[in-house]
């Protein structure tokens, strides 16, 4: 901007001196003021266009075809892929699995994250050590976690079933049972993400003005009361942010169920697709059945679902943010 400021007056001065008509230099500097800002922000939009918008639109285009990988002349079939998808019980099964795993992971995750944040916010010896500690699972390799947890939840030789049997319980076939497999996968997700979310919540918690807590203390509020009446309401926007991010992540869950399957490399999500998620089904359609058109249709439906849920979240955030929580006091 400094460059523009310098150039512009010089140019106009020169213009005034020589002739009343704007000189080339003058025009150039005016163009500079008008165009430069767009050029400065262009890189983002160009990159977004290439890696974000184009794939999105091209996927929509592909979803209109009966497009098998390697087809030279894919056949245009309009919305038939979508029609087929809505009648496909495997898709609905995958969607139900995804939602189930998402709920089983997100709800406990957020509750534990808030409680962990509250604990970390209290005066602890070696606070930084604890804070780094809860973030460690997030830094671990997702694939390694998947393999280790799949081992732990092995139906015959897994550690979890070993422990269950030692304390006199029946072993659970984590692979075969639908609910069991969802729980196992949700535990994998929670182990990784709880600490990450706890740190975000902790940051928001520490931004809450001390005066509010002190005022509540003077009013005679106990620790629990202060937590529910001061901390939680003020955390709402952060909690909604964390919910949105974990929703987007949760609906796209892929690696954990893929690695949980006993059959190496399988995208089936168990023997009867009992833990096949939408992205796993998408991947199977595209890269195992080479049915690119159908996979694109799945991708778009998933995209729309995520957008809808994000809009609902956005709407809720807006409403909650408008009512200041302290007003009640």
């Amino acid at each position, binding site marked *: 901007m400094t460059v523009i400021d310098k150039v512009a007056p010089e140019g106009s001065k020169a213009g005034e001196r020589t002739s009343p008509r704007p000189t080339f230099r003058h025009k150039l500097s005016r163009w500079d003021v008008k165009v430069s800002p767009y050029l400065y922000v262009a890189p983002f939009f160009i990159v977004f266009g290439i890696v974000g918008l184009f794939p999105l639109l091209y996927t929509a285009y592909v979803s209109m075809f009966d497009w098998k*990988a*390697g087809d030279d002349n894919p056949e245009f079939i309009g919305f038939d892929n979508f029609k087929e998808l809505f009648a496909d019980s495997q898709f609905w099964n995958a969607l139900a699995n995804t939602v189930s795993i998402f709920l089983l992971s997100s709800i406990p995750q957020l509750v534990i994250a808030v409680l962990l944040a509250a604990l970390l916010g209290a005066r602890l010896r070696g606070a930084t050590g604890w804070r780094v500690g809860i973030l460690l699972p997030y830094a671990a390799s997702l694939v390694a976690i998947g393999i280790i947890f799949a*081992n732990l939840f*092995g139906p*015959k030789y897994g550690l979890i079933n070993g422990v269950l049997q030692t304390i006199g319980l029946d072993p659970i076939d984590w*692979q075969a049972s639908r609910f069991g497999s969802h729980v196992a996968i949700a535990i994998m997700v929670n182990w990784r993400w709880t600490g990450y979310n706890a740190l975000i919540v902790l940051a928001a918690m520490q931004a809450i003005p001390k005066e509010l807590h002190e005022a509540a203390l003077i009013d005679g509020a106990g620790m629990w009361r202060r937590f529910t009446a001061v901390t939680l309401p003020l955390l709402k926007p952060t909690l909604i942010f964390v919910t949105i991010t974990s929703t987007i992540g949760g609906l796209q869950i892929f690696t954990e169920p893929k690695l949980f399957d*006993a059959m*190496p*490399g399988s995208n089936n999500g168990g023997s*009867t697709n009992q833990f096949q998620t939408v992205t796993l089904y998408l991947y199977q359609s595209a890269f195992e059945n080479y049915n690119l058109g159908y996979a694109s249709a799945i991708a778009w439906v998933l995209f729309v679902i995520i957008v809808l849920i994000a809009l609902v979240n956005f709407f809720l955030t807006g409403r909650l943010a408008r009512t200041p929580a302290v007003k009640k006091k």
Partner: protein
Amino acid sequence: MRTIRNGLVLALGITMTALGATACGGGGDQTPAAANPNEHVELTLSTFTEFGYEALIPEYERLHPNIKVTHRKTGQGGPYHQDLITKLAAGSGLADVAAVEEGHLSDVLDKGSKFNDLTKIGPADASPDRWLGWKYDAAKTKDGKVIGYGTDIGPLAMCYRKDMFKAAGLPDDPEAVKPLFATWDSYFAAGADYVAKSKGKAWFDSAAQNFNAMVNQLPQGYIGSDDKLAVEGNQGIKDAWTKVTDAVAKGESAKLTAFSNEWNSGFKQGAFATKVCPAWMLGVIKEQAGPENANKWAVTAAFPGGGGNWGGSYLTVPTQSKHPKEAAELAAWLTAPEQQIKAFQAKGTFPSQVKALSDPTLLSQTDAYFGGAKVGELFAEQAKKVQKPQYKGPGDGQIQENASSPALQAVEQGKSAADGWQQLVDQAKKITR
């Protein structure tokens, strides 16, 4: 430094090629595919898991100083083939010589137009009589093109736990157990006997492993020669299903999904007494069962229902290749008997060429882990029992992987055999729709 050495190598190479040409020329006419020996050519070769080519490629470069070969190795077969099909679809990115596994061959044959016909561009010495007939024929497209040179094969035999047989009062000598493995009926009957005598121990590792071998032995597989799904009308498949699921109901299966972590642990724990054993499985058993189980495992030259093949690969030359003739020469050389023996010695890939099967190096090969069994001779014998290739239409491999194996797993997890069959049929229909 490099140029001096290259010069020496070049001189050496020319002499060697000349010698090689006279040696090969005895058979008949001159090779029409001979490439210009002075042109510098860079070739790429893509393989997955272990082909045993590490030492062979420098050797080939010594013999052909104008050729530089880059070897792209991938760990797992599944992703490798997904990548292969995707690049085939994209029209670029494939290696000049691309390996294809037998299980994925049907998908590739379906796209035969994207591969070179090796009978047209390959060297003359790579003639059909080099290979076992069924191995060579399996890589033929419907219109008669040959798109791949056979590398290794996986002739089937039966592996079993000597100590566990003994403990259950079954014969345990490799010759004495052969009658048990004569047919699938005798095999499953022996299994029921074993389960009773061993008080509930499992006979085999997983239903799907046996079922796959049984379906492969049938004259027709999941897909008919008209490329239509033939699961429901195929009595052979239904019978195999009934036999396997009956055995599961009798407690013969250890219910371990092949190649899973649990399956690996199962070898160490002695979770099952017998195992369908392609030649390459010996290495898997050694690796998973570990030294503490040495001499407990044995292998015998018998397989229920005769013989069969499981696994093995082909080297193809996609039409994307800019140097198809040179690529075909490389592929032919790598799959020639001498090189197959070297690959076998390096990584245990069992040769598919007739001459290699009578090679003394192969026949004298023993395996101390399996009680000093003459495994080379044993599998060479099993390889000759394989009849002709079953026609595998497009989607065959997917049905095995995504329809029949999960359905059998579901039966092992408690689903009824009838429901499991329905699951197989429904899923197979979905795959081939």
